[in-house]
């Protein structure tokens, strides 16, 4: 018995190690190993006023703060039966586009690329591929600019709140974003051609892909939860289909489906389930990749993130153009009456579907809350894939095996801060 114990995997969000018990190159079991205590964010939210919900919830994770901001606000609004304006909805969608662009560009370029190109670190990558690095940085910048313009800050946005926005962008700011987005698209397409040439490891394991479905929308903020294996259920009924569980002694939380099998969420799940809803350039790029769907190679998630970056640039420009002619005053929070209630909401975030279940009392205080993050959902799936992948490579050298495992985990884009909140 040969144990691989990776103490800390660099370049992923959060702290984690990975334990794998390896017997003659065959990985018998693999599991994420976390140290420490969680920050108990759900426990902290209980008893707080609904206005504090996004402020505290978004601090689960620096990189995923926009997703938590939007999902937590939506959960409170739905629970208290507060309706928001069309303009508010569009501003939030645009902000989510910014989040996808920023987060995906960070992951596919700065987290996984050096592994795929076998370069020691990101600084060397930036040196060797300076032109591509500049493009990736520009793409991230645009994503952050959207969030900053609408939310007031790129990390932990401020302006979005229950009922609408505290402050709305000016006409000039919206026009600036349109201009930036239009300029960026050709650059993103150029970077996407570069990524296409990178050789991805050959690995495939049939699985279940789960994401949200809503008519006409690729990235939904509500709708039904669907899978390639025939799952079709409204988010509110999801509790009967999936459950979150915790293994003794672990501070990570996991989920499993009806069949007790692991499943996958995120870009690869969305592309497999609903690529027909992509914007024009994104669809063209996807077609040019020549991957046959269903595609079960988890490494392709990286290219699918690129598809989504293109989709989100196009979508954000479209939304901004609509908002440029809208009365933005409608997006400002108006006085509202609310009721007590509880609800389960789901939104698509970069790493997959994010669920918020919340129960609010008649005075507007949080009675109960449960947050199921994408990483909590795909963790078991990742472990199953790592075990299959490393076994399949017939790698005998421990160091090489460790290197492959690290690279594979990074390609998966886990967010451990989110998983252990």
């Amino acid at each position: 018995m040969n144990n691989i114990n990776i103490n800390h995997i660099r370049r992923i969000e959060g702290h984690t190690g990975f334990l794998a018990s390896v017997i003659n190159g065959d990985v018998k079991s693999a599991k994420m190993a976390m140290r420490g205590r969680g920050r108990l964010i759900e426990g902290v939210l209980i008893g707080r006023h609904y206005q504090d919900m996004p402020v505290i919830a978004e601090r689960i994770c620096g990189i995923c703060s926009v997703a938590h901001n939007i999902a937590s606000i939506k959960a409170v609004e739905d629970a208290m039966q507060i309706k928001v304006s069309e303009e508010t909805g569009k501003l939030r969608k645009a902000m989510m586009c910014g989040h996808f662009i920023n987060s995906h560009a960070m992951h596919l370029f700065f987290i996984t690329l050096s592994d795929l190109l076998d370069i020691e670190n990101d600084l060397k990558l930036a040196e060797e591929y300076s032109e591509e690095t500049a493009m990736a940085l520009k793409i991230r910048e645009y994503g952050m600019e959207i969030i900053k313009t609408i939310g007031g800050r790129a990390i932990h946005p401020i302006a979005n709140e229950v009922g609408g926005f505290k402050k709305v962008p000016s006409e000039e700011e919206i026009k600036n974003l349109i201009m930036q987005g239009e300029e960026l698209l050709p650059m993103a397409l150029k970077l996407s051609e570069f990524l296409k040439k990178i050789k991805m490891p050959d690995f495939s394991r049939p699985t279940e892909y789960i994401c949200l479905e809503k008519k006409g929308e690729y990235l939904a903020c509500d709708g039904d939860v669907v899978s390639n294996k025939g799952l079709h259920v409204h988010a509110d009924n999801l509790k009967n289909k999936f459950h979150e569980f915790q293994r003794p002694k672990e501070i990570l939380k996991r989920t499993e489906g009806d069949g007790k099998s692991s499943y996958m969420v995120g870009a690869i799940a969305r592309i497999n389930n609903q690529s027909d809803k992509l914007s024009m350039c994104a669809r063209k790029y996807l077609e040019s990749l020549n991957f046959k769907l269903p595609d079960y190679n988890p490494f392709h998630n990286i290219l699918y993130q690129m598809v989504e970056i293109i989709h989100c640039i196009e979508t954000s420009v479209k939304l901004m153009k609509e908002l440029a002619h809208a009365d933005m005053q409608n997006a400002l929070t108006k006085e509202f009456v609310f009721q007590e209630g509880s609800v389960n909401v789901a939104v698509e975030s970069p790493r997959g579907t994010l669920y918020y279940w919340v129960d609010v009392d008649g005075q507007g205080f949080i009675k109960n809350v449960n947050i199921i993050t994408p990483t909590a959902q795909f963790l078991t799936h990742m472990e199953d894939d790592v075990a299959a992948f490393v076994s399949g490579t017939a790698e005998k050298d421990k160091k090489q095996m460790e290197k492959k495992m690290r690279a594979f985990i990074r390609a998966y884009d886990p967010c451990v801060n989110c998983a252990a909140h």
Partner: protein
Amino acid sequence: MESAETKTKKPRIAIVNLASCEGCQLALLDLGEKFINFANNVELVDLKFLEDEKNSREKIDMAFVEGSPMSEAEKKTLLQLREKSKLLIVLGNCAAMGGVPEISNYREQKQTAKHTYRYIHGIKNEPIQEVDNFVKVDFTFPGCPISAEEFMEYFPMLWESLEDGQDLPKIPDKSVCVECKEKGIRCYLLDGKPCFGSMILGGCSAVCPSAGLMCQGCRGLRPGANVKNISKGLKNMMTEEEFENVAEIYGLRDDIEAKEKIMPL
């Protein structure tokens, strides 16, 4: 010879994450090209270095710590880091003041964990303690998240003071109000709306008031603030409970309570 070497020497720095959202580190990465230039001009120390006793004689010039230690392993890391570092600098509200997880300090501890986890056996559930409860802190970058611009402004000063043996820099004792005035943001207090800005250390460009949210104090109390009077005034605009709730978000409540106890001269 030796002085020439020190002149061109790159600062050896370590950036360490304890329990946090990692937003402060992300704020630095978000600088993009500026961050790449920064990283090229320092020697980033691998964390493995900490556990490697052979290197114990080699010092880290500046260690940056984000988050607060929540496990024995993290506490050990922090102590080792202090031992090896000439300067230990904290990044952000969690490390400096406990951050949002510190809200659990004001609750029945077991309840918070019990709600979040089914198996609380083996999950340490001690009160959150900030970095300075364990080691000496030389400088604090406040905020949630930190201001990356502020980091870039103070980093060279920190390095300089280390090299020349000068005093460490200090963030000027100015309130958030000064920045609201500079940006032309109408004072919330004028409209009878509460805002913590007058007792809080500025340097954030009043980012929250600019986006429509009262200052909730993530950067901490400014040294010269008359906390007792300011909080008394605020409690005319909000209930004691509301005041406490806001002060809890960023771990400010214990600091305010400590100041309120001090009798004015």
